[in-house]
């Protein structure tokens, strides 16, 4: 009997791993947004001295990995594993960004849910006693994502009101056994959910049912109430998806409105930054968690946070073959103290 498994989708971590340090670098646009003071570094331009956007994204991964180690006062040889992934084909941002680290590496693909996926798996590995320190990280880049998933940047086309803006950046956390917190106490792993949305310019609507399902499962499995958390935050549903997720939960008798927010809504000012429905991409939830939310947790403004990163699991090929967009969401409960 798996005694740490509670309910259908949740695990309770008896010896919760703690977040030893976080690091986040973002692009120039994110660096002008409402959370600009919470990031470690704002890169000066999209290429950051490289000759392609893909190389710039790998550089983000490389530099954020170095930064998070420096902040955790650890060296590469003290890291047992690094768990990372991104949006590019075959996860090249992580593969190339981390190839010189000489740290055992697991590559993950959870689309924009990768930050919660890596923290989930990393926490299980640390809690299981298989590792002392693990780095969990992810990245995305507006230009490389547009190139792979949409149209050339200089093509004179219009974005729809429901479209989202891929965040340029990378976020990382170091998970350690013991430590002074914040702690990862529960993990709720999401199922793939597809309600038939085919519009790649309305990812929020494609992912919202998955987010609602995971949040509902978390409260059902743990028996907790939404007011247990100071903040329930989804990854990149954007304005449209956030509203849909909230209403699906409400129709199921779960009212989270008073403490609900979305990283994609938080990271940009939709009025002045022309980002339509909000931010998206792996780095959206990763940098908001590693920057803003972690800061709020360590300063004591937040005590308990349910972090639910959301991903859309389609590819350009599946979209061209008229397939709908499956969504996924993974939840991680982060507590400032052990109580």
């Amino acid at each position, binding site marked *: 009997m798996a005694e740490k498994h509670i309910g259908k989708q949740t695990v309770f971590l008896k010896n919760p791993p703690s977040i030893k340090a976080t690091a986040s670098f973002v692009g120039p646009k994110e660096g002008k947004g409402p959370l600009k003071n919470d990031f470690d570094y704002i890169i000066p331009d999209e290429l950051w001295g490289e*000759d*392609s*956007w*893909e190389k710039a994204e790998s550089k983000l991964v490389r530099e954020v990995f170095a930064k998070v180690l420096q902040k955790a006062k650890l060296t590469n040889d003290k890291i047992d594993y690094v768990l990372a992934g991104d949006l590019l084909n075959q996860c090249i941002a992580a593969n190339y960004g981390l190839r010189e680290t000489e740290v055992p590496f697991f590559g993950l693909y959870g689309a924009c849910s990768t930050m919660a996926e890596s923290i989930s798996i990393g926490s299980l590995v640390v809690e299981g006693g298989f590792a002392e320190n693990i780095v969990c990280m992810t990245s995305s880049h507006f230009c490389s994502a547009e*190139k792979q998933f949409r*149209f*050339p*940047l*200089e*093509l*004179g*086309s*219009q*974005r*729809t*009101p*429901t479209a989202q803006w891929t965040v340029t950046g990378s976020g990382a956390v170091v998970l350690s056994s013991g430590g002074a917190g914040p702690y990862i106490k529960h993990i709720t792993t999401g199922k793939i959910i597809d*309600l*038939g*949305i085919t519009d790649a310019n*309305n990812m929020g*609507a494609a992912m919202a*049912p998955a987010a*609602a*399902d995971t949040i*509902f499962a978390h409260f059902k499995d743990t028996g907790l109430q939404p007011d247990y958390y100071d903040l329930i935050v989804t990854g990149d549903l954007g304005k*449209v998806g956030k*509203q*849909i997720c909230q*209403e*699906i939960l409400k*129709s*199921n*008798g779960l009212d989270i409105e008073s403490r609900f927010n979305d990283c994609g809504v938080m990271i940009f000012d939709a009025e002045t930054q022309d980002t339509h429905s909000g931010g998206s991409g792996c780095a959206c939830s990763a940098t908001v968690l590693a920057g803003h939310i972690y800061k709020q947790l360590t300063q004591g403004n937040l005590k308990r946070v349910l972090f639910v990163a959301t991903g859309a699991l389609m590819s350009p090929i599946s979209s061209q073959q008229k397939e709908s967009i499956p969504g996924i969401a993974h939840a991680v409960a982060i507590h400032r103290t052990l109580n």
Partner: protein
Amino acid sequence: MKKSFTKDQYSKYVEEVSPKSKLFTNVLKAFLVGGIICDIGQLFINLLKSKGLDSDAVSSITSIIMIFLAALLTGLNVYDEIGKFAGAGSIVPITGFANSVVSPAMEFKSEGYVLGMGAKMFIVAGPVIVYGICSSIIAGIIHYLIT
């Protein structure tokens, strides 16, 4: 969850809650910018005619000038801003066609001149050329048969 949507119910619901594009203002902007682009073309036509060129030469040279201007503005990162404002107004004229060739050429240069720029240059404009030529052949056959 207890209450869940069927795919049909969900797509109807999403349709309701998603904000719509502003049809009237978008059409108006497209009309104005598309009109201005055509005016600029007309300006060159009149100018070239006044220099005494014949009408075939005038239309060829005007097209070349308009394509050059659109390619230049694409390279200077300006045409996408015009397109964001004008929508179809700057896509439909020949300048939009130039933009759709130059923008992928710029984007895929990082994968080399042959398999990157050369191969990907027509990812947007390619279908227009293919089906444009196909329909011109069909039109040609019909013309041949009825005359």
